[in-house]
């Protein structure tokens, strides 16, 4: 409170110096209240709810029975959950390792103003027009071992790419990248165009070639976009349930059953909502930790305009 009063009086001081009106009417907290209430009901309350439900046994019909830490002790001894966590992590890292370099290169390439680049970029955008469900269903058919691409171009895909755990994970990374690289490269394209040209001009006068310019100007200038793009990838990866359901259905066996998928199965297939809530709470914890870390890195929480200081 002290700091608030100080900043207010400093503000007033500044205004008075300019001979402006003594009070500048600002929007009060009431402006944020409807949106806050809405967000509390549909996003924050369910967070509290899922934590509570993780301490109950509930079949979805009768009232939830409080069972203490039973779900949690089962959770920590459940090898299936740890396998799901490992697969989730592998997929997350795989997606970032494939998508980030490709998106950066494509985005920087598309930021050039050449005509052919503009035309190709329009084609590269097309996968974004398909929903994730549509993309996954399309690829499911294309990867079918009998009628799809593997039967025609076996040297590239093998006999049945979705038949092994490694193959299925590779396919999930391939399909996710196919759909989302266009989005991430758009972010990089926008950011690359915003890099001041003077930096490049100065560098070429100093004799720096294309490669040096890329590593010493372009990449450092794209730092914030890299963080934003990674946040999208992490949150997207932790909710990548539809693509798993439609492409591999968690298979072969339970080999690609990632956390959100196994949570869905536990809740809506075996009606064990209490235990599913424990898995969900764990998911929530990972996501929050990842996002806090990334927003700290990005400096989003400093709440300043990027125009300040220019």
């Amino acid at each position, binding site marked *: 409170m002290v700091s608030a009063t100080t900043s207010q009086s400093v503000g007033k001081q500044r205004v008075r110096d300019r001979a402006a009106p003594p009070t500048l009417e600002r929007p009060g907290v009431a402006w944020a209240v409807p949106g806050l209430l809405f967000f509390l*009901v549909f996003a924050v309350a369910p967070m509290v709810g899922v934590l509570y439900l993780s301490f109950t046994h509930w079949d979805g019909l009768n009232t939830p029975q409080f069972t203490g830490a039973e779900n949690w002790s089962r959770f920590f001894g459940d090898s299936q959950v740890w396998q799901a966590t490992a697969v989730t992590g592998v997929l997350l890292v795989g997606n970032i390792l494939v998508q980030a370099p490709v998106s950066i290169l494509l985005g920087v390439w598309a930021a050039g103003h050449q005509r052919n680049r503009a035309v190709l970029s329009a084609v590269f955008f097309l996968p974004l027009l398909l*929903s994730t469900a549509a993309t996954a269903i399309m690829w499911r058919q294309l990867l079918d071992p009998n009628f799809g691409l593997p*039967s*025609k171009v076996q040297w590239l895909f093998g006999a049945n790419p979705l038949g092994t755990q490694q193959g299925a994970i590779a396919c999930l990374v391939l399909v996710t990248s196919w759909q989302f690289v266009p989005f991430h490269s758009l972010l990089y394209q926008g950011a690359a165009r915003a890099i001041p040209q003077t930096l490049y001009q100065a560098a070429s006068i100093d004799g720096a070639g294309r490669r040096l310019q890329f590593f010493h100007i372009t990449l450092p200038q794209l730092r914030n976009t890299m963080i934003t793009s990674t946040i999208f990838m992490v949150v997207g990866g932790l909710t990548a349930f*539809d693509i798993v359901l*439609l492409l591999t259905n968690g298979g072969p066996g339970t080999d690609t059953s990632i956390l959100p998928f196994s949570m869905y199965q536990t809740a809506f297939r075996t009606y064990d909502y209490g235990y599913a809530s424990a898995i969900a709470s764990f998911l929530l914890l990972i996501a929050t930790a990842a*996002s806090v870390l990334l927003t700290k890195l990005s400096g989003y929480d400093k*709440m300043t*305009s990027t125009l300040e200081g220019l």
Partner: protein
Amino acid sequence: MRTRPNYAAGGAAFVWLLIIGVPLYALLNTALQPPSKYTDKGPLGLPTALTFDNFSTVLDSGFLQYIWNTVFVAAGTVAIVLALGIPISYAVVRGRGWYSRGVFRLFLLGLAIPSQAVIIPLFLIVNDLGFYDTLWGIILPTAAFALPVSVLVLSGGMRDISTELYEAMALDGASPARSLLTLVVPMSKSAIATTSVFAALQAWNGFLFPLIMTQSDDTKLVTLGLYNFVSQYGANVPALLAAVLLSAAPILVVYLFARRALVAGLMGAGGK
């Protein structure tokens, strides 16, 4: 200054063109083939007999209704996100004191909530409010989960409006409401466009909320309709892929007529 052509980049772009283009060709080619031809020629064979029968098969099964439902959900989501997100961002950027920072931090933290993780209690809430199996049961949670990104993008846009303009408005005796309508909204057009594109795509892509919150045919969205087709059509791959193509039709129309706005909108989602 002429630069020498970048052959490495050109080559890489060509490879990516193949990765994007070949599956899209296979999609289009298959959707236009009679089902009997697909089994022996596969997705990449050159087309001999083109047919639109697959599309009429899909349309006869009520797919237009699903598309209409999806458009309604997308529009409803955008309307709610803007109606709530703009005042929040305004209070965050122009308000002073503990609450403006606190509200912003809450939504920053909200960025990380995966909708999957809270789906069980959310289902209960939607059910208790009487929205189960209605389109509003999808719109309300979708809008809530689009709010954090929207507040981030909108407040980013509003922060770039200079303080002098607000002071000039206040000097002329404008209330905060008037400043919002005549200064803030017109000046943050591009942030509003980005928010709208982002929220609409969230609704368009949504799979989990429709899956959990609705069950009847009248409230089915395109993504869920596709999911049902997988079991319904089974072996009829051309019809299934025709449905995939049809599901993208509305947004393809938007892309053809408003490509710049769509692309610029998405680019803005990265912030600055």
